[in-house]
């Protein structure tokens, strides 16, 4: 863990309103031992302000998308930048909400797997019925459907609004993005997740981001009122390292 990561995690652990004494341990899933293993509260091990592919290379942007991204990077320090809707507390969307320095919870039963995020009370509910998604209107979390591939939870999401970005610096995606997440538990107890972005409108080929998360059972995801941060002169999303 870097110093910044330690600081961020410490801030969460010290946030009195988020920690309740005597809370129960993470709940067990009703039925599926695979879901049981990933239930609980998790914190990202890193917070990639600018996303890179898992091999460390830059995302394979098309030339037009590269120009758009460069323009947004140049505008990043503008306090009134308009490409980042989280600035006014609107949802970061998927997958960016998995990359920011805030914890999240996973809860599951046979029908649904829920992700409950500390950042401003967002959540998404993954349908595990095995049926195809039926997206109606683009939205920040899209329309996630999940299945088990061995012990790996595979979530496919379509129907994401293009008003969200993949990272803090405005890495774009279209409404036609197909996001495939694969989550599994590593031998050391960390949660590993890969995010494969297939979006021909902005990228020349599918590419993958890999993250790991550490269990933080001492943290309770509770109230979070983003406008209060802005009222206090703080950023809506805690700053991340490029």
């Amino acid at each position, binding site marked *: 863990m870097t110093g910044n990561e330690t600081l961020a995690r410490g801030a969460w652990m010290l946030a009195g309103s988020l920690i309740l004494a005597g809370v129960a341990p993470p709940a*067990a899933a009703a039925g599926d031992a695979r879901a049981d293993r990933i239930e609980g509260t998790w914190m990202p091990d890193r917070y990639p302000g600018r996303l890179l592919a898992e091999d460390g290379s830059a995302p394979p942007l098309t030339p037009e998308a590269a120009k758009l991204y460069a323009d947004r990077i140049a505008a990043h320090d503008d306090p009134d930048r308009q490409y980042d809707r989280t600035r006014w507390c609107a949802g970061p969307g998927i997958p960016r909400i998995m990359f920011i320095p805030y914890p999240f919870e996973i809860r599951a039963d046979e029908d649904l797997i829920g992700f409950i995020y500390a950042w401003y009370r967002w959540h998404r509910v993954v349908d595990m019925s095995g049926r195809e998604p039926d997206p109606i209107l683009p939205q920040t979390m899209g329309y996630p459907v999940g299945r088990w591939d061995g012990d790996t939870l595979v979530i496919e999401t379509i129907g994401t609004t293009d008003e969200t970005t993949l990272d803090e610096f405005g890495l774009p995606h279209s409404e036609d993005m197909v996001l495939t997440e694969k989550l599994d538990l590593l031998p050391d107890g960390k949660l590993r997740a890969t995010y494969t972005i297939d979006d021909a409108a902005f990228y020349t080929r599918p590419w993958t981001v890999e993250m790991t998360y550490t269990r933080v059972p001492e943290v309770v995801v509770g109230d979070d009122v983003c406008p209060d941060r802005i009222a206090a002169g703080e950023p809506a999303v805690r700053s991340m390292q490029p």
Partner: protein
Amino acid sequence: MSRGPLARALHAASCSLALFSLALPVIGAAQEGGFAPPDAEPGIGENGPPRPDVPGIAPGQPRKLTGMWEIERFIFLIPDAPMLPATKALYDKQLAAMNSGQILYTAWTSCRPGAPSAMVMPMNSLAVIEGDRDITLSFEEPRMTRRIRLNAQHPADLAPSYMGDSVGHWEGDTLVIDTIGFNGQFQLDSFGLPTSPRLHTVERLTKSADGKKVTIQTTFEDPEYYSAPFTIERAWIPHADRHQFEYDCSENPREEEFAHTYFVQDLYRPTCVRYEGKGLDPSRVLCRRREQGADDHEH
């Protein structure tokens, strides 16, 4: 880079409905249209496998609530709350503001949580994830997730919060949820019935025998503002869709709203406002650190 016309129209309808509900002094109006009809199938998960043998849940008991539900009727008022005189005076002041054409800005309108908002005036859908030790309720609008710890006690040193601390247990087919530890920073209904940290709620959730309805009776007790406990009833019905829509409240505040706005608490003043552009000047959202307002109605 914008949502399509249909999405925009629906979003606008959703936002305007929320404000409409605040501006119109109509008692008990239900939202008509726009919702999918009740699912003809039995409640999702009704015939799920038996629960493990954990305290308070009998072996073999079927799951009661898991799955997707929607609100049977959108109701935004509590018509007969037994207000203490000072509460009534506050309420009448807010009512007068509304009758003069002002929009009442409550915690709900200013994009804040508050578990009772999901008890009194939820809209659209909710997802219920039922574990052995806790139950998770994720509401679409107002967007919030509640956690009900089963067969547990409230902590002794509970920090006040918007969501409070909820513990639950089954009494036969009824889930009883007891919640304390609120922060008094939210209202009970769209007319701004106040709450204090002394608020205590008890909810009784009962699923019908055919699985097609969950009836919720909620009792509120708050001696700071009310002379006696009072009870409301709401209901969920099975949700036909497998996904929730999103309510992104922070996209709502627009410059033109605030000419005629009554803030129930100064805390509710918006920090970010969308300004409609003129001519070639695009619309934009600007955020500013909050300055203390002169016309504070805080009670």
